[in-house]
């Protein structure tokens, strides 16, 4: 299209340049103008659920004490969800209802998992960032630990609109303590995730195998389950890492992995619990129970095959059910084993949270806190369980059968540890460049247990010496 113009222009250079420059500038400027005047975004399927939630909420809050908001604020909300994801639909419903009831406006960016890029961009441009929603480890690493977020202790005393309980009443303090700074929470979760070994309950029954509970029982069950018993997408190194991290935490207790990773001498890796954990992983690798070609499987092939009935066990986060349910074989019964235990070891549970923080740079922090309390309302948060199939931090919200096992893990209020024992969140470079490559080699059977211990001990020492 530019070609025609170029062909006809025979005049001096400046005219040629000026025309094109002007055209481009006008075009780009128009784009800016028109974009700012069209705030509408294509809404997706969530509408029907929106309206029902909204209706229920507004009738609830009709009797609520008058909202103290003197003037409506605009909340700039940066969210990790993409449009069309179930969590996005649930949160969008809360936002719509919140706007209708309080008069505040929520300007939300559904930015996907790369949302921190946008958050950083906005913060450095001096733009308002009132609310960020992301899974805890990257969020804490990028914003909370760097001192860029506010204490949210005030929210705990806020009454949840439509109910006669406060936020502090319904969110267990054990959850809030994980990322607290000086005893004050900076992150309020809306979803809780864990991990374990997933299996199809009806398939295991058919095979005549009892759900294993110890590591040795698990190996035996896996061997008995036949071909491709343990599925894995080996190209995702942090999925492979579930095995060794869990075994270390089982043998050495919560914090032992974290301590070994941060030991500047690297010698902690040579301790007896570490050796036992490594030996247990080698047992699995040597058992032949891992699916053929697991070391070269590209996400999501293995988990799709697993859901389609090719394979029995799969270690993964509790989101696996929602990721695979659309193509699970008929009659698939989602069950989850807590990670198998070992003799004399720890039985702690992994706790991973997804939630909100309010940056110091917020320009409407009060409204943002108000929104958090609002979105934690029972009816609104229930969507996280029913639609998004995740566990909520509120124990009074039931979960669908696919994730009942996962919810049960927390029902007994066990000792909890962070995902990957906090190594990924606190030492991301060590995690990516030291631990994961060696863990892959061990998990793929390229190096022996002893070689692994030797190499990681010296690599850990080298890593810290080089910092």
């Amino acid at each position, binding site marked *: 299209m530019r070609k025609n113009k170029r062909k006809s222009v025979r005049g001096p250079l400046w005219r040629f340049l000026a025309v094109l420059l002007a055209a481009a500038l006008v075009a780009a400027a128009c784009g800016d103008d028109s974009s700012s005047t069209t705030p509408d975004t294509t809404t997706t399927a969530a509408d029907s659920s929106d309206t029902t939630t909204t209706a229920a909420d507004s009738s609830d809050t009709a009797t609520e004490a008058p909202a103290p908001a003197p003037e409506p604020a605009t909340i700039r909300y940066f969210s990790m969800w993409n449009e069309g994801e179930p969590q996005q639909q649930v949160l969008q419903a809360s936002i719509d209802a919140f706007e209708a009831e309080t008069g505040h406006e929520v300007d939300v960016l559904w930015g996907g998992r*790369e949302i921190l890029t946008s958050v950083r961009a906005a913060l450095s441009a001096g733009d308002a960032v009132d609310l960020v929603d992301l899974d805890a480890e990257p969020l804490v690493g990028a914003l909370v630990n*760097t001192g860029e977020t506010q204490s949210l202790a005030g929210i705990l005393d806020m009454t949840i609109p439509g109910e006669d309980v406060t936020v502090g009443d319904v969110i267990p303090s054990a959850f809030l303590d994980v990322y607290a700074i000086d005893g004050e929470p900076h992150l309020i979760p809306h979803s809780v995730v864990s991990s374990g070994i997933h299996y199809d309950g009806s398939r295991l029954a058919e095979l005549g195998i009892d759900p294993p509970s110890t590591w040795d029982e698990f190996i035996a069950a896996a061997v008995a389950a036949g071909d491709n018993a343990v599925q894995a997408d080996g190209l995702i190194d942090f999925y492979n890492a579930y095995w060794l991290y869990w075994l270390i935490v089982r043998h050495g207790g919560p914090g032992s992995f974290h301590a070994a990773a941060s030991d500047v001498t690297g010698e902690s890796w040579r301790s007896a619990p570490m050796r036992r954990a490594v030996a247990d992983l080698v047992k699995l690798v040597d058992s032949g129970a891992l699916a053929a070609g697991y*070391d070269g499987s590209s996400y999501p092939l293995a988990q799709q095959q697993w859901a389609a009935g090719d394979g029995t066990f799969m270690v993964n986060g509790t989101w696996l059910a929602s990721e695979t349910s659309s193509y699970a074989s008929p009659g698939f019964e989602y069950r989850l084993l807590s990670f198998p235990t070992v003799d004399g070891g720890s039985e702690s549970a992994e706790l991973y949270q997804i939630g909100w923080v309010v940056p110091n740079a917020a320009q409407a922090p009060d409204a943002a806190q108000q929104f958090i309390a609002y979105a934690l309302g029972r009816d609104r948060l229930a969507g996280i369980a029913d639609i998004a199939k995740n566990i909520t931090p509120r124990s009074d919200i039931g979960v669908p059968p696919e994730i009942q096992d996962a919810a049960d893990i927390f029902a007994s209020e066990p000792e909890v540890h962070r995902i990957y024992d906090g190594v990924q*969140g606190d030492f991301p470079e060590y995690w990516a460049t030291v631990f994961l490559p060696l863990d892959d080699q061990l998990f793929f059977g390229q190096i022996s247990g002893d070689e692994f211990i030797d190499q990681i001990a010296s690599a850990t020492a080298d890593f810290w010496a080089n910092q």
Partner: protein
Amino acid sequence: MNKIVTTRTKPVSAKLSRHTGVRRHAAIFVAPALAVYLLIVIAPSIGTLWISFTKWKGIGDEAEFVGIDNYQQLWRNDTFRGSFGRTLTLLVAGGFVVFVFAFIFTMLLREMRSKKLIRAIVFFPNVVPPVALAIAWGVLLAPRNGLLNGFLELVGLSSQTRTWLGPDLLFRSIIAGLVWIYTGFFVTILMAGVDRIPAYYYEAAELEGASARQKFTRVTIPLTWDVLSVAAVLWVILAIKTFEFIYAFGGSGTDPSASSWTLPVHVYVVALGNRSPILALGQGSAIAVVMVALVGALIFLTRRVMRRAVVEF
């Protein structure tokens, strides 16, 4: 970075009769492009150079000046050495294969009737979003139910099936994917040169009984030398800089495992990676500087090796 400029200020042999005003006109012609380039690319590069002398976690963090610490650490860093080695492997081994293929294509296509169609298809991977290619390539090479292993079994070569994406072959599979993508790019570039060669050169060669190889070495290579030198430099750049395919292929949408990092992936993960942000901006910038230095040195070398009088026809 500016080293190249100061050492290479040799005047090009002027073909035009030099008259007063050449410099003035040249300035008018070059200045606008140069200004934008300086502003958008060079100035931030200098910023990156500066960051490479600091420890900095990014916006909101106070940068601490540490001199050449980041560079010294790189040489002791096994992960960096791995990324560096893989980049060179891609550059040399991948480059060799790409150019052999591209030449074969160019020679064959010259005489084929459907060359336009073929070239269009062969080039096409270059316009497909690399993310999509990475997914398709992963499906092709999947260990079970993968297209390639399935095909091998279909034609009775079951013994040749492999775990293509396993640790031993992963990087080679990545190189194969990049060869597949970039061969089409270089076929197009080389053909643009070959097509400019008047047909009577080949006719004359044939009249003298030249073999296909002789036509290639006596006609094609000399008459496309310019384009060839452009292509060589482009390969250096593409090989060192290529990022999206490796990133998406190695990790299906998340940071890939360090065992398949090349330099740009390494820079991205330590400086910008998101899922578990490392935010070692100083280190990432140092790697970026090393990378640019490598590109600069190799471009300089390539141009020196390939410099030669322009063939006019």
